[in-house]
């Protein structure tokens, strides 16, 4: 047993020993192998002298090195993608057919044109046509562009002044229901232009055809500081820039737009000249102008008014000036011809000059107005405060004289409805309403400050507006309150003197000009534009007859009082 185990042990012992020896023997073997190989090769080399050199540790050395590699970075970039748009269409049989037919027509047209051109020298004809069409297309483009730009400008303005535009159309002062007999003026747009900054507004006129267009004349009332003048036409649709702009050497003192030809504007200047501007031709120069030769006034022209065309269908207008002449200007064959209608003589004070001639001191006319129905009759206001009723047919005598005011008469105006009533205002702080058959005024209003202008309202025979130099606008309605203004509102800063006022013919707004070159538009509150109240069951009659009747009632009251006293 022991023997077996011993042998086992022995075997075990031997195995490790064998194992141990095996590696040793293995190492011995390759070494022996290598040695054998080396020897074999050494034996071989003499046979093959040309052999590649073996690289081993002893005859070959390898060297390597690594340079510094820059570190890697990621870079991204994105260009803008090519622009894209949408496109849509429909492809139907009928659309295709229509397109072909159109094309056919176009081609036929071009063929006809070519045939028409053949008699003329072809090449030059074509060149000229091309030039013309290119020029036309250029000017057409410019015109189209300017039209588009104009519309854009108006839209931008409407957006900027959106609240004002809304007020203009829809706002009616609700408080007027509670305020009996008093109204307000809501300020709307303000118009001003840099070029006209230091000039006063000397004239305002609404265009009779285009009811949102009005003309403003700029000049200076100051005798010492006379400079240039301007004529601007504004539209309510574009408050920031005038539609038309004309400048002149001398201040514009008055203007009037022709009723039938709303593109003709007659203008009177400070230097006595009158001119006609044609709005259709956008030159800065007037189309027709008077000169010293053609009988211009020697003093500022204070008012011009268009008249009906004379018998030869020539345009004519009247002008009044401080030199005492009322002149009728007629446009004959593109020239202005003047006819002195009346010379304003101051009655009763003719002085005798040694040579026996009688000198008539001449009154200075400052305002006039023509009767609405009786064509030949007109009123002239003078610097002395008198108002003369004149006729176009009598050049030396007046039909009537009214001792109206203590200072110069600034405006006279016939009532648009009642044929007998007119109104005058003056720098003596008063506004007076007259019946032309009676020498004393019907109503007198003292406004505490020199009155620049009065205007009747176009919608009622009893409403009128007055503006004063203390910056206030006064609105009167004789049907509501005979003695006081129903609206008395400062419109501009106190320093600014208001110079003119005009009612718009259809919209319930007035424009007021001041001596700083600003024009303010104001909306009349409902109380100011009251129509006669309806009694239950009765129809409200509208129309001039009612207006006349209204005013007649009032006048009769006053007349009775007067007769009594």
């Amino acid at each position, binding site marked *: 047993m022991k023997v077996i185990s011993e042998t086992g042990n022995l075997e075990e012992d031997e195995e490790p020993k064998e194992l141990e020896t095996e590696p040793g023997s293995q190492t011995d073997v390759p070494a022996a192998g290598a040695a054998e190989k080396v020897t074999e090769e050494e034996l071989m080399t003499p046979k093959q002298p040309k052999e590649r050199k073996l690289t081993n540790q002893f005859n070959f050395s390898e060297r390597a090195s690594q340079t510094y590699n820059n570190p890697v970075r990621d870079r991204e970039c994105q260009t803008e993608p*090519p*622009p*894209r*748009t*949408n*496109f*849509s*269409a*429909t*492809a*139907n*049989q009928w659309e*295709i*057919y229509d*397109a*072909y037919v159109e*094309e*056919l027509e176009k*081609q036929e047209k071009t063929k006809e044109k070519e045939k028409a051109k053949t008699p003329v020298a072809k090449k030059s004809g074509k060149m000229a046509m091309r030039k013309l069409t290119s020029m036309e297309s250029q000017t057409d483009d410019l015109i189209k562009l300017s039209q588009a730009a104009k519309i854009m400008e108006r839209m931008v303005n409407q957006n900027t002044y959106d609240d004002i535009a809304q007020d203009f159309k829809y706002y009616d002062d609700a408080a007027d229901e509670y305020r009996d007999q008093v109204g307000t003026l809501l300020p709307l747009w303000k118009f001003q232009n840099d070029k006209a900054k230091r000039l006063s507004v000397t004239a305002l006129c609404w265009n009779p055809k285009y009811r949102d267009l009005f003309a403003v004349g700029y000049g200076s009332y100051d005798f010492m500081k006379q400079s240039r003048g301007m004529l601007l036409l504004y539209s309510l649709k574009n408050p920031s820039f005038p539609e038309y702009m004309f400048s002149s050497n001398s201040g514009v003192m008055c203007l009037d737009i022709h009723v039938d030809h709303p593109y003709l504007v007659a203008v009177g200047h400070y230097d006595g000249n009158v001119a006609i501007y044609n709005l259709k031709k956008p030159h800065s120069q007037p189309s027709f102008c008077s000169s010293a030769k053609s009988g211009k006034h020697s003093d500022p022209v204070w008012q011009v008014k268009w008249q009906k065309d004379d018998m030869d269908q020539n345009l004519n207008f009247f002008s009044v000036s401080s030199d005492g002449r009322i002149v009728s200007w007629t446009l004959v064959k593109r020239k202005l011809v003047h006819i002195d209608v009346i010379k304003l003589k101051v009655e009763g004070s003719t002085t005798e000059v040694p040579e026996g001639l009688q000198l008539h001191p001449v009154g200075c006319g400052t305002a006039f107005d023509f009767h609405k129905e009786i064509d030949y009759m007109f009123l002239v206001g003078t610097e002395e405060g008198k108002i003369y009723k004149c006729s176009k047919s009598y050049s030396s005598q007046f039909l009537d004289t009214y001792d109206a005011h203590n200072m110069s008469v600034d405006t006279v105006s016939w009532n648009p409805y009642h044929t007998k009533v007119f109104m005058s205002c003056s720098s003596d702080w008063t506004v007076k309403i007259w019946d032309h058959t009676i020498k004393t005024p019907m109503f007198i209003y003292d406004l505490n400050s020199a009155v620049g202008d009065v205007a009747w309202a176009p919608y009622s025979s009893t409403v009128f507006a007055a503006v004063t130099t203390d910056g206030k606008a006064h609105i009167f309605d004789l049907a509501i309150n005979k003695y006081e203004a129903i609206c008395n509102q400062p419109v501009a800063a106190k320093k600014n003197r208001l110079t003119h006022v005009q009612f718009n013919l259809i919209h319930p707004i007035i424009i007021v000009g001041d001596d700083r070159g600003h024009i303010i538009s104001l909306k009349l509150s409902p109380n100011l534009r009251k129509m006669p109240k309806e009694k239950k069951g009765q129809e409200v009659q509208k129309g001039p007859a009612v207006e006349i009747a209204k005013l007649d009632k009032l006048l009769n009251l006053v007349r009775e009082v007067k007769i009594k006293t």
Partner: protein
Amino acid sequence: MGETEGKKDEADYKRLQTFPLHSDMPEEMRVETMELCVTACEKFSNNNESAAKMIKETMDKKFGSSWHVVIGEGFGFEITHEVKNLLYLYFGGTLAVCVWKCS
């Protein structure tokens, strides 16, 4: 009437078989594309799909990737296309071809 109709047809035929209703392309490109469309439609006159295929592949090769072509007699469409890469033309009195690029 018959004569005039015949003349009209002739005129139709002689005149443009195609004319571009709406084109956004530069002149050269448009002319080439139109010719290509005409060739394709004449070649595959009874098969719109292969005509469209031919057009699209040629356009891709010539002018860059992602062209789209629609050929038909009755369709409506609303597409987004790269600017200056749209051609919409009528062919032969009945067909409408719309070619546009959009990647």
